[in-house]
């Protein structure tokens, strides 16, 4: 299952296309592997969505495309789909024996670039490379736009004379275009031989960057917001209007889903429908936490967390506890949130939190009983706790599955997709560093929660500082508490 890097690929694209296949059915996995090998693709198989995500996170540039089944016991295929799309931005193809229009539609909604019906045929698999190609084309265009804009900005900023500026802009565009075309040629060729190149040039929405974005959005006012306004306010050199526009779109989608989720109501009650259809929120949160829990080193989140010294303070063991705690906290602090957050954000935060509880996928060691005390304890903590907790997901503990069983009695949104990857919810808020715009919005939502406890203003502060503050708070008063939590969940 080794995946040589792109640079060793000597034959023409799409030979050697690096495919990751995820399917809980071992028979299908074997068949698909054989079929893809026959297409001369490089195949890596995975029986668990979790493993697949971990693999993707560890080796971000080792895969060109992901094919995943919709129905998997450990994670809803749609959630995986979202995670991959947001974090790795790889094309994802869904598969299922169920060809119902609603399901296919859901796949497309969640970002699948194709939806194959089982039994899958060779000819369908032979063509999957087109999705990789298409994505590369789009990326090239984005970069193109980036270059052009950058040059325009430079020209505009440099010139005092308004007219001159226009002249420069116009002339420059042509110049840039010409140059771009030349660059493009090389670039296109390069893309296919080394997709990693294109990826590196993309805008990474770091925590800071996203924070600036959210600040700008809040400053302008969500209703009046527009990419240009945001771009100007952010004042980040090299950032293009296109970058902001697409980020804004994702942010909007994310918020909308959060709202729908919140409209769903209580945890147990409406989680069903909300989750089966609108579990986007959960998804966003999911991958951050997954990141946190699985891959401290490579995940930006963990890095951020480390920067904030959390790493030193919390061992893996604690992280596990925190994992449990965070889910609980979310539950518990729901009430706190309701009180403290300004209305719109409150709603959103709550709904996000709501996502956490019924997750069967929580992988938390805590038994149901121990949740209670944790929750009540949580409420006495500052809002920062969830943040901290969320960041403490370095490990993914398979043994602590008792929570899952305990929650099995809770009404489930969709039995087939009952594994809601809730763990991620909290961290995703913080996981701005990954291309998860949604998570970022989550973070912005959380900020008020945290800052409210610390200061009276409701304006969202930078997540990092906020987190730092909360973290330091936690650090100061937390050690003993964490012990408590540890106990609670053992």
């Amino acid at each position: 299952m080794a995946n040589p890097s792109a640079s060793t690929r000597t034959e023409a694209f799409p030979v050697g296309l690096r495919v990751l296949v995820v399917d809980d059915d071992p028979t299908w996995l074997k068949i698909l592997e054989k079929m893809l090998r026959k297409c001369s693709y490089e195949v890596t198989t995975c029986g668990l969505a979790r493993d697949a995500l971990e693999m993707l996170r560890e080796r971000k540039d080792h895969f060109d495309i992901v094919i995943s089944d919709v129905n998997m016991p450990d994670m809803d295929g749609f959630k995986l789909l979202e995670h991959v799309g947001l974090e790795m931005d790889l094309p994802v193809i869904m598969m299922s024996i169920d060809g119902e229009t609603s399901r296919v539609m859901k796949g497309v909604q969640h970002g699948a670039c194709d939806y194959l019906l089982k039994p899958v045929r060779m000819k369908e698999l032979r063509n999957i490379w087109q999705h990789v190609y298409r994505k590369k084309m789009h990326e090239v265009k984005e970069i193109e736009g980036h270059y052009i804009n950058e040059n325009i900005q430079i020209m505009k900023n440099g010139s005092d004379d308004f007219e001159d500026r226009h002249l420069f802009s116009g002339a420059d565009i042509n110049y840039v275009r010409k140059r771009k075309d030349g660059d493009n040629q090389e670039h296109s060729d390069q893309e296919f031989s080394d997709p990693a190149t294109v990826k590196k040039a993309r805008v990474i929405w770091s925590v800071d960057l996203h924070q600036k974005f959210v600040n700008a959005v809040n400053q302008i006012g969500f209703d009046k917001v527009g990419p240009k306004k945001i771009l100007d306010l952010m004042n980040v050199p090299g950032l293009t209007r296109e970058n902001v526009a697409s980020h804004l779109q994702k942010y909007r989608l994310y918020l909308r889903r959060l709202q729908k989720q919140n409209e769903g109501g209580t945890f147990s009650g409406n989680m069903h429908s909300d989750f089966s259809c609108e579990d986007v929120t959960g998804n966003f949160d999911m991958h951050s936490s997954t990141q946190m829990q699985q891959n401290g080193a490579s995940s930006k989140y963990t890095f951020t967390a480390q920067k904030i010294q959390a790493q030193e303070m919390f061992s893996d063991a604690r992280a596990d506890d925190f994992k449990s705690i965070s889910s609980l906290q979310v539950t518990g602090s729901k009430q706190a949130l309701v009180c403290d957050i300004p209305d719109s954000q409150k709603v959103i935060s709550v709904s996000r939190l709501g996502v956490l509880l019924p997750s069967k996928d929580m992988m938390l060691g805590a038994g149901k009983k121990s949740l209670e005390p944790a929750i009540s304890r949580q409420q006495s903590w500052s809002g920062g706790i969830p943040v901290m907790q969320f960041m403490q997901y370095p490990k993914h503990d398979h043994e602590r599955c008792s929570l899952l069983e305990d929650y099995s009695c809770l009404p489930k949104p969709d039995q087939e997709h009952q594994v809601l990857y809730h763990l991620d919810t909290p961290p995703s808020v913080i996981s701005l560093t990954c291309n998860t715009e949604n998570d970022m919005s989550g973070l912005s939502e959380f900020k008020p929660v945290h800052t409210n406890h610390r200061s009276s203003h409701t304006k969202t502060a930078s997540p990092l500082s906020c987190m730092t503050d909360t973290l330091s708070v936690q650090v100061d008063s937390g050690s003993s508490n964490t012990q408590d939590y540890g106990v609670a969940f053992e």
Partner: protein
Amino acid sequence: MEYSNLRRQAAYMKKSLFDQGYLDEQFYQLEELQDDVSPNFVEEVVTLFFRDSARLISNIEQALDKCPQEFSKLNAFVHQLKGSTSSIGASRLKNECTRFRDYCDEENLEGCLKSFQKLKREHAVLRQKLESYFQLLRQVGPVEKATRPSM
């Protein structure tokens, strides 16, 4: 020749499996995938299928014992099994899964139980038939390889 007789027998067995609806097109697809790299591909896949489906069937059995019955959970298990049956083209089995799921949707426990019995029977029958088929093929196999022109 002995071998050609066996080969004919095998071919006939396969044909009847198709005619009687036990297998469908997907099985041919599997045969197409078999090559020098994986000379026993079809048998391996079928073996894998029966091992995994046995597990799924026991999951369903356990789920059926639950009281009160959780139909959605049951449905999910059957859906899994159905997906699996499609991998080898186990047509009859797949259809029975569909019927089972319909009963689940109706929350008709009795229907589910009856369907499940049928399912288990179909599963056992198919397993037996395919085992005989592959046994026959194994007798025929080596000969085929020997008669093929060397690469």
